[in-house]
C-alpha cells in the first residue's frame, strides 16, 4: 500500500477550478520534488492535503495509508502523521514556542490515544531535538515566529517536523526568502530527517534547493496538472530549458 495517493484530484477555489485532475503516488522513504511556475497550483495541492478550509474538492480522492484523507479533520491528519511546512509560517504573539510545541504535541498524542507528555519530559525532549538540529535554546522561549528571521522561521518548521515525527512531510517553498547559507542549514535539517519510513514532498519553484535535498522523483506541474515526471535529472533539465516547454503540454 502506498503512503500517500492522490488520484485525479480536482479542486476549486471560489468557483474556479485550480487543480484539474492531479495524480501523485508517494511511498515510504521516497523524496518527491514538485516543481512548477508560480500559480501552477503547488500550494493549493499542499493545502488540500493538509485540509485547509476554503478549498472545494470536486473530483478524485486522496488516500493516506489506504484511508480517505479528505474525511479526516485537519488536526486528525496532523495526529496521523501529515505535516506541512508552510511557505510563510505565521507569528503567534504572546505564545512561547515551547508552550506551542508542547500543546501541539500533546494534542496529537491525545488524538492517537497516547498519554500526554509532562512539562519536564517535554522540555528534555525538545531541547535534545533542538540541539541535534543546531537550533539555539533561546528560540524556544520566544513567541512563535515573532521577530524570527526568514531562516529562523524555516528552522522552526524543521524543528517541529523533527519533534512530531510525521510519516509524510510536505515542504512548501522551503527555500523562499533564504540566502544560500540559511538554505544549506535548512536542507541539512531536512536531510537529517530522511528515513526509510518517512516520505517527503518538496515543493519548489527553483532547482537550487534540489542540489541540497536530492529527490528520488521529480514532477513538473503546470496549470493544475502534473505534466511530466522523472528522476532527479529532470530538475537539471528544467534548469536549462525552463518551464515554457511545458506550458503547451498543460
Amino acid at each position: 500500500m502506498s503512503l500517500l495517493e492522490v488520484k485525479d484530484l480536482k479542486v476549486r477555489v471560489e468557483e474556479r477550478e485550480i487543480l484539474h485532475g492531479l495524480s501523485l503516488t508517494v511511498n515510504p522513504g521516497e523524496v518527491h520534488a514538485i516543481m512548477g511556475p508560480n500559480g501552477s497550483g503547488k500550494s493549493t495541492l499542499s493545502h488540500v492535503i493538509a485540509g485547509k478550509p476554503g478549498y472545494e474538492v470536486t473530483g478524485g480522492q486522496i488516500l493516506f495509508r489506504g484511508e480517505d484523507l479528505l474525511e479526516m479533520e485537519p488536526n486528525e491528519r496532523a495526529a496521523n502523521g501529515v505535516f506541512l511546512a508552510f511557505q510563510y509560517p505565521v507569528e503567534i504573539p504572546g505564545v512561547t514556542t515551547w508552550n506551542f510545541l508542547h500543546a501541539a504535541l500533546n494534542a496529537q498524542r491525545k488524538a492517537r490515544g497516547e498519554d500526554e507528555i509532562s512539562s519536564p519530559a517535554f522540555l528534555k525532549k525538545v531541547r535534545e531535538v533542538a540541539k541535534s538540529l543546531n537550533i539555539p535554546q533561546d528560540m524556544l522561549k520566544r513567541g512563535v515566529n515573532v521577530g524570527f528571521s526568514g531562516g529562523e522561521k524555516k528552522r522552526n518548521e524543521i524543528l517541529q517536523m523533527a519533534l512530531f515525527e510525521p510519516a509524510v512531510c510536505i515542504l512548501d517553498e522551503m527555500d523562499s526568502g533564504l540566502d544560500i547559507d540559511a538554505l544549506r542549514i535548512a536542507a541539512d535539517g531536512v536531510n537529517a530527517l530522511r528515513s526509510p519510513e518517512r516520505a517527503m514532498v518538496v515543493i519548489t519553484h527553483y532547482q537550487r534547493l534540489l542540489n541540497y535535498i536530492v529527490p528520488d522523483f521529480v514532477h513538473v506541474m503546470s496549470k493544475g496538472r502534473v505534466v511530466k515526471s522523472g528522476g532527479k535529472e529532470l530538475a537539471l533539465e528544467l534548469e536549462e530549458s525552463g518551464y515554457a516547454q511545458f506550458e503547451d503540454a498543460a
Partner: protein
Amino acid sequence: MPAVQETVERVRRIDVDQYRYGFETLIESDKAPKGLSEDTVRFISAKKNEPAWMLEWRLEAYRRWLTMTEPTWARVDYPKIDYQDIYYYAAPKPKKTLSSIDEIDPEILKTYEKLGIPLREVAILEGVEPPPGGEQTPNRKIAVDAVFDSVSVATTFQKELKAAGVIFMPISEAIREHPDLVQKYLGTVVPTSDNYFATLNSAVFSDGSFVYVPPGVRCPMELSTYFRINERNTGQFERTLIIADKGSYVSYLEGCTAPQRDENQLHAAVVELVTLDDAEIKYSTVQNWYPGNSEGKGGIYNFVTKRGDCRGKNSKISWTQVETGSAITWKYPSCILRGDNSSGEFYSIAISNGFQQVDSGTKMIHLGKNTSSRIISKGIAAGKSQNTYRGLVSAHRKATGARNYTACDSLLIGDKCGAHTVPYVEAKNSSATFEHEATTSKISEDVLFYCIQRGLSQEEAVGLVVNGFVKDVLQQLPMEFAVEAQKLISISLEGSVG
C-alpha cells in the same frame, strides 16, 4: 465552512454548555419583601443589627436615589429594569450566628466545593505547573470570605490575620465591631450621591468584605472574596471597603459566579479602596457571572462602581480584571491619584461572547504632583457581542509632571461582533505627558490553520491565540489565579473543557 465562521458557530454554542457554575443550591432562604421602599432599607438594616448612623446613611442614599435617573451613556442596551420586581435581601436559613465553619449549611459548603473554593483552612492550589525553567512556588495560604446571596457565610484564617493586625471580615460585622474605621472611610471614595447604581447600593447593600491593614504591615496572605448569587429574582449589592494604612501592602482577589437563569439579575456593587502614605493595594477580579444563554436570554447585569483613592504620597493602587461573564458589564475601576508621587494601574481582559455587552474601562484622575498611571486593556469580542473600552485620563491644574501610558488592544473573532475604543483625555496643565496606543485586529484564519495543522483543535487554537493576546495582563495576576484565569479564558471561548 471557513475556519473563522466555524469558530464563531462553536463559540456561540458554548455559553450554555460550558458555563460550569450554572447549578442552583436548594436551600431555604430568608428574604426581604419584594421591592424597594424605606421599609426595605429599614428591614435590611435591622437584619444586620446596624447602629442608627448606618440606617440614617442608607436612608439618605435611598432618598437621593429617588431623585436620580439611570445613566444611558454606555454602549449597552437592555430592557427597562423594574426596581420593584427585585428582592433586595436574601439570606440562607437558618440564621443563628455561626461560630465555626462546621455550622455552615452543608449545601452551601457543597456549593463552594463545586466551585472549587476552599472554605476549610488548608493551603490550596497544589500542583501548579511551573513555567519552563521556573521555580515551583511554595503553596501559599489564601484567606477567603464567601458571600452567598446577601450575606457572608464564612471567612477563613481569621486567627492568623488577627495576629498580624489585619482586619478581614464581612462588612456587616465591621460596622458593628469597628464602627470608627467604617465611619471614617465608608463613602469617602464613592460618595452616596456618586451615580445611580452606587447610590442604590448605598441604600440596600447587604454584605461584602472589609479589610484594614495597619501601618507598616504587609498582609501575610492573599485575601479573597467569592461572591455567589443563588436566589431567584434577587439583586446582589455588595460593598467592599479596603484600607491600607501607611506603609502597608495587601493583595486582594474577588471571584464571582451565579446559576443559570432565564431572567436577568442585577448586581450593583461598590468597591472603595484607600491607600495612605507609601501603601499599596493590588486588587484582582476574576468575574464569571452567568452570561446568558446562546439566544441572549438571562444573565447578570453587572453594574459596578469601583474606585481607589491614592490618598497618601507614594501610594499605589493596581486593578487587574479578567471579565468573562455577565450579560452586561458596566464597570470602570478607577484611581484618584491624590497623593504626590502616587501611581495607579489598570490591567484588563474583557471577553465577550454570545450576546454579551461589555462597556468597561478606567478613569485615572491625576491630582497630585508627579503622579503616574498605566492602562493596559485587552478586549476580545466573539459571537454577536459588543465590547467597548471607555477610559478617561485627566490631569488637574496642579498635577504637574503627570504621566500616563495607555494601550488598548482589541481582538475580533468572527464578523458579527464589535469592538470600540472611547478614550477621553483632559490635561489641564502643560507638563502632563499622556501616551495612547490602540489596535484592533481579527483572529486570522492563517494563524488558526497553522495551529490546527500542528494537531490542535479549532477551540484549542483559538484559546491559545487568545491567551497569547492577553498575556501581558495575565502576568499581573497572582500566579495561582493566573492559571485559573487562563483556563477560564479558554473555556469561555472553546468548545471543550480542560
